[in-house]
């Protein structure tokens, strides 16, 4: 990874890191290979009945790259409506497709955690006790010839 000033800033002061009490929903992205995971917490606001991400926080068991990805993606997600958040996730995953799996794994984990949190929120509109969704990444952190296929939960 080439380290520029922006990345260093995210490493020194990760944006939106921490737990959120009274979150409207949370979701998880997991790496089944090594137990690393990201939790995304959402606080949802309403703008003329349109739900949007009023606040977002994340926590991670993972490496510095995961923290940087969490810091950047949660900043981008803040203020988006739910469709916008899904578009952000899809755009990120498309970009990651072009990267080697070991470089994509951390950001994929964050993007999937955002998707899981948004979808959990949508389910909770119908079913308030709906459990948090967990998605597993398909990229692998360590380069290897034959990576296992991991389907999402």
């Amino acid at each position, binding site marked *: 990874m080439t380290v520029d000033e922006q990345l*260093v800033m995210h*490493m020194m002061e990760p944006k939106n*890191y921490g*737990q959120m009490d009274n979150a409207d929903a949370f979701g998880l992205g997991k790496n089944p290979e090594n137990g690393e995971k990201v939790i995304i917490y959402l606080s949802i606001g309403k703008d003329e009945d349109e739900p949007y991400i009023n606040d977002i926080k994340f926590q991670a068991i993972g490496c510095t790259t995961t923290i940087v990805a969490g810091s950047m993606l949660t900043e981008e997600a803040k203020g988006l409506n739910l469709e916008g958040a899904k578009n952000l996730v899809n755009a990120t995953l498309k970009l990651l497709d072009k990267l080697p799996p070991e470089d994509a794994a951390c950001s994929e984990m964050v993007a999937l955690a955002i998707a899981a949190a948004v979808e959990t929120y949508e389910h909770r509109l119908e079913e308030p006790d709906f459990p948090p969704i967990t998605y597993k990444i398909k990229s692998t952190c360590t380069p290897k010839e034959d990576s296992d296929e991991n389907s999402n939960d």
Partner: protein
Amino acid sequence: MKTVMIKVHEVWLEMLMAGFMSNQHKREFFDFADILFRHFTWIEDGMIRAGEEYSYDRGAVPIKVEHLNILIKDIEVRLSDIELQLMSLEDRALASRVDSDIKYMINVLTQMSDEVISAFSMNRVMEGYSLSNEARDALTLFLFEESYKEYELVLIYNYLKAHSKDAYMNRIFQILIDESMFHLKCFGDMQAKMGILATPRVVMKELYQVEDVVKFLKDGIDEEILAKEECKKLAEAVSKDNKELAKFFDFINNQENYHIALMEDALKHYQEVNGIE
């Protein structure tokens, strides 16, 4: 007691960070940080004895200052706040012991001279060390990764020690705490010199509230082996530019051998005592 523990945790970290960024008062800050960490463990023991639930959660500890006296003032405020909280602590002997230390610390802190701080300049240059861009990037990533990891390990071993009555295990846990503290101090000092000092992020509960000690130790041994590899790679990356730095990372790499041996010893002992195959 829970509030006191959180506040002591926060001021311990802030004192440690002050030690990294200071040139003139490093020893005092580090000594005081060590004392505060001991307070933290005593309060934790008190909570365990009282059967109170607790975690290592804490608030943010902002440290980005241009002058040391700003941070010193903040530490003084935090220490004074703890003094007030101590008044309601049931364990009066503990409260008095902590209070006495805090009074002395505040007295020393108020007499410290100011310093201009360069620990947040982000210039990623270490005086006297010449590094290529590639080596500098590798070192930057390593320092962020490992400074957090050492803080995490200090908390994990401390939690394990607090919840174990096995003297043999606790002796090993204490050595591992001391080793991680030493590494944390080395890496924090280097981060400050490179202008990239940062407070480690909060450690998630499930990492230190270990339910399966055998799995934790086995995974820990694997992680130490990986850490050795990272140190080796870094030593190679910086060796072209700087032999001294390469020697330092070889030294850290070799220390991991000792950690692995200790963890293997702990694993063997734990399995024997608990009749685990």
